[in-house]
């Protein structure tokens, strides 16, 4: 499976950060509700904390590919390369 190379962080549809996966670090992203803390470590990404009531983005944990979203704070974190086939079991989840 090809390794994800970049992490794109958007707030309210605006791209704010493009980060390489290789470097570990923490990014504070300012959204309408406050700061969403994004952590990169060992080719994985997670939301460490966010100013939302249910903290569903935090509960999602570490991700190697795909998307992590904090809906209330309008943060969309996209992991990986566009176009490469990613080894996921399903293409979408109905919930």
């Amino acid at each position, binding site marked *: 499976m090809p390794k994800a190379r970049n992490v794109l962080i958007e707030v*309210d*549809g605006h791209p704010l950060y493009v980060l390489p996966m290789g470097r570990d670090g923490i990014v504070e992203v300012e959204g309408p509700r406050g700061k969403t803390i994004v952590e990169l470590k060992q080719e994985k990404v997670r939301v460490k904390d966010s100013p939302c*009531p249910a903290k*569903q983005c935090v*509960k*999602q*944990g570490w991700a190697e590919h795909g*998307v992590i*979203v904090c*809906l209330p704070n*309008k943060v*969309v974190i*996209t992991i990986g390369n*566009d*176009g*490469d*086939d990613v080894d996921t*079991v*399903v*293409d*979408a*989840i*109905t*919930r």
Partner: protein
Amino acid sequence: MKSGIQHAKSKFQIPNSTKRMVSTLCCFVLLALPGSCTHGKEKIYKKSRIMMDTVITISVVSHSEDHAERAINSAFSEIKRLEALFDFYSPDSEVSRINKHAGISRVKVSQDMLAVMVKASFVSDKTGGAFDVTAGSLLVLYDFSHGIKPRPYAIEKRLPLVNYKAVHIDRKDAGVFLEKAGMLIDLGGIVKGYAADRAVETLKREGILSGLVAVAGDIRAFGLKPDGKPWKIGIKNPRAEGKDDILATLDLKDMAISTSGDYERFFIIEGERYHHLLSPATGYPVRTCQSVSIIAGEGVLADAFATGVFIIGPEKGITLIEKMGFDGLIIDREGAVHVTSNIREKIELEKNFTRHNGS
């Protein structure tokens, strides 16, 4: 390199040198035309945005990243346009205009609103009123962010305002009139499916031959992926915490799937779950199902019927889904799985889940 020239059988022999020259010229022409480059491998391009108060993910198959991006952006623009019409919480939306004129006057509406209201009325009829957009006046009594439920008196007072038959739709002049003051329509149970349909249409107009539009859990697929396989959809376990836990997978071939579940918006008070799928008759959440998933040709119908069937309950719900010619999967309050007869062979159920006896 394929030359792209069809050689019809003819009496005249075309010299090989001419054939080569023509085929090279054709190649140049193909390369020069924007978006028609056949060099690139077909790939899946995917983009997620927040709209309609949820996450929308659009995936398309294309040879060209530019083409994919343009098509995806067009589809998102279309969804943004629909959001402005249907947003219950925006005072400027068309649905708010209809609500503000309840008991006062008819409101002229867009073709999209007319289409949704006509479909909503159809589903209300078929579900015996279990799906009812006028339940909006009950839904506003619940505060899901803060876990506050209404007093019984507040619900009782509003029940007379819940009646889909009191919604008058003028198809000729594209108008909607709510009979009584205080009536509120909330289209949350139908517009995500409608948006998925319109987004797919936009992608097709942009020349995309295969794609997947997921408006939260309201999903519509068309075409096949580069590996020749259909788009694969997972059905979420209603009681999974945090991370997505899939209880079944199925292939979606030019169809739509929608799920209504008691885990999307809810709070728990004294062990009782209060969620957003309310019975229009009582004003209280219906608890006979944990989730309902419906597969139909159109997203708008999959969405509305999933909402209505949830209210109806598992056994009668499966019967209705079969009667409508759809496929469906229901997880009842005990966690048992009920399925329509056709779907049995189409889905792969994960090991932990037991099928309900007899279905």
